[in-house]
């Protein structure tokens, strides 16, 4: 086992020693997670509302109502809020015109403008805004009614509000729960802003970096290092197993880095760490097998790098490494499952979104393990042939 570990550790060391990997392995994946999360990710709350315009009691009252309903509220300038809506960074823009706060204080009618975004849950959030404003309107109507009814007995607005607050505290007000019945929205509900992008990028980069790393295998063969290793008192199987283990270590390192870094930097929730780690280990083995096969079949490092990146991007695109599988058509989604990415995507989705157990993800793990075995066996066989041919 010691020669296997020696070869594998050396492969990992060579990978980490390559300065060009600093950007592609450590920085680029996190940049993509950040960009995708910022552009398309959800907030993890029931919606986002951005308020622009005059600040004051009306704006504060609406904010309080929305926050109580689980909506994330922020403020900004008119153009800024419109920009957020158009870019999908907020679900609804609410615009409070000048003088609205004064009108609200003096019980005069107020006209507010609402601009919903184009995303699927924007309409639901817009309804939440309507509900919040309606609640404020109802509140004012109740105060007016009490003052009108009890004015003769010295009931003023302040007394009426105090009395209403005391009443509200003793009863449970009816709540409005708006549930998006859209299948895709339901699937992604509760996901953090970066959660989806992080798992997709993990699949993309683990496979991509593994395939691109097949060039070091070609180099070791071309330089005669593998042949030289075979002249030492170790078996051919140990050397080849070491090469495979090295590629596996690289794949797992890349995935573990993305997992830990996104959890720490972006608060990505990976679910049960044991299960997520298990999926990474098995998917890493598939990637290692593919890298072994590519490195054994090709003799030119530049060509292998190009082919590896091409295959990595295509498989990731097809398998949920770039676009969520949930928005695929049923047919395309079936086709996607020829890729290991799709099976790993499903496993991560089950762990992250549905708190799946080991039993729940056994089918995905089984398919991935089978793919890994086939690819590792083919890769090792092809490498043995190519090494023999080179000597």
């Amino acid at each position, binding site marked *: 086992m*010691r*020669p296997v570990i*020696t*070869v594998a550790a*050396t492969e990992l*060391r*060579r990978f980490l*020693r*390559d300065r060009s990997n600093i950007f592609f392995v450590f920085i680029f994946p996190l940049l993509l997670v950040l960009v995708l999360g910022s552009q398309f990710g959800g907030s993890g709350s029931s919606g986002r509302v951005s308020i622009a315009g005059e600040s004051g009691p009306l704006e504060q009252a609406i904010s309080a109502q929305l926050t109580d309903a689980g909506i994330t509220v922020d403020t900004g300038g008119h153009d800024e809020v419109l920009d957020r809506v158009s870019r999908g960074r907020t679900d609804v823009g609410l615009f409070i015109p000048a003088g609205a706060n004064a009108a609200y204080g003096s019980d005069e009618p107020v006209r507010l403008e609402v601009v919903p975004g184009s995303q699927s849950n924007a309409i639901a959030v817009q309804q939440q805004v309507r509900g919040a404003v309606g609640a404020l309107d109802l509140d004012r109507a109740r105060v007016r009614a009490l003052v009108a009814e009890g004015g003769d007995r010295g009931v003023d607005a302040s007394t009426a509000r105090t009395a209403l607050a005391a009443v509200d505290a003793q009863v449970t007000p009816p709540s409005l729960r708006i549930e998006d019945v859209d299948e895709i929205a339901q699937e992604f509900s509760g996901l953090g802003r970066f959660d989806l992008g992080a798992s997709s990028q993990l699949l993309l980069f683990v496979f991509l970096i593994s395939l691109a790393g097949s060039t070091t295998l070609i*180099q*070791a063969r071309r*330089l*005669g*290092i593998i*042949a*030289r*290793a*075979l*002249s*030492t*008192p*170790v*078996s*051919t199987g140990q050397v080849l197993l070491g090469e495979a283990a090295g590629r596996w270590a690289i794949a797992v390192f890349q995935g573990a880095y993305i997992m830990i870094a996104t959890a720490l930097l972006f608060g990505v929730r990976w679910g049960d760490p044991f299960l997520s780690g298990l999926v990474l280990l098995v998917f890493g083995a598939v990637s290692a097998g593919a890298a072994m096969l590519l490195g054994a079949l090709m003799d030119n490092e530049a060509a292998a790098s190009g082919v590896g990146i091409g295959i990595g991007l295509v498989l990731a695109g097809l398998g949920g490494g770039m676009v969520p599988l949930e928005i695929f058509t049923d047919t395309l989604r079936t086709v996607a499952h020829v890729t290991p990415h799709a099976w790993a995507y499903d496993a991560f989705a089950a762990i992250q979104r549905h708190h799946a157990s080991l039993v729940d993800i056994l089918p995905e793990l089984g398919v991935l393990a089978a793919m890994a075995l086939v690819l590792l066996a083919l890769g090792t066989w092809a490498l043995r042939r190519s090494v*023999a041919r080179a*000597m």
Partner: protein
Amino acid sequence: MTEHATRHTPPEGPPGDGDVLLVTDLSRRFGDLIAVDGVSFRVGRGETYGLLGPNGAGKTTTISMVAGLIEADAGTVTVKGHRMGPARVEPKRHIGLVPQELAIYPELTARENLTFFGRLQGMSGTTLASRVEDVLDVIGLSDRAKDPTKEFSGGMKRRLNIGIGLLHEPELLILDEPTVGVDPQSRNSILESVESLSTAGMAVLYTTHYMEEAERLCDRIGIIDSGLLQAEGTRDELIRLTGDVDHIRLDGSGDTVAAEAALLALPAVEQVDRERHTLHLAVHDAPTAIAEIVTEATSAGMRLNDVQITRPNLESVFLRLTGKALRD
């Protein structure tokens, strides 16, 4: 060792006590190409055996079988009494391979490369660390031990390539054209290292297509071409095998006729041709005979102005044996 150079015949009998390597009737075919055809030789402790032949002669294929990298179609390789083969581990403990390629990781430092191969040799801990430092010292790379080898010159890489083969102090060092593409200074350094290793008792199998290297380093030389070991023996034995003799040219004045007659009477002199004031002699072992020849010519009344010795070399032996030049 053989007493005389021989056209290729297999070594007879079981490995002797001094034999580190015994190769018997080794053959290997790649498709229709017979790369190695019934090659046999043996290498003893402290002996440097050279396989001399042009590119494509079968040297590297022979080395690959000796190092257990590829299986022989026929014949056997025995290292320290252990049968060698790709699946056999024990005989590989006794060999150090220095391949023709620079088989080192460019991203790793010299020390990391040595440590990597040391671990594959089964070394560890302080033993490995100590040997790595020793080898770095021997190959003159101690001060560059922490630098990635991709920053090394060609000569430094060659030295490291050899150092890896020495790390575990093997009893048989196999060097496959170790000076290809090396500057003269590094080349001389490599040759000196091989000489000192042989002196220290290491058996060395050395392949080259440089005649000068084979003549300088090798106790015995096997001339290989088209997969066949054409002949083997010491340099002098090989030259005798071809029937070539040394030539001495004496330029001078005086009584060249008397000198011619006197020199012909010497046992080392085979033939004398006179051309005005110059005598051309065909001589056995000119370095030994030259003193007597000069004395005899002078005594006979010839005043010598110039003496030139021309000895047959392995190039001419190779030409005689194969019908083509060594560098063809």
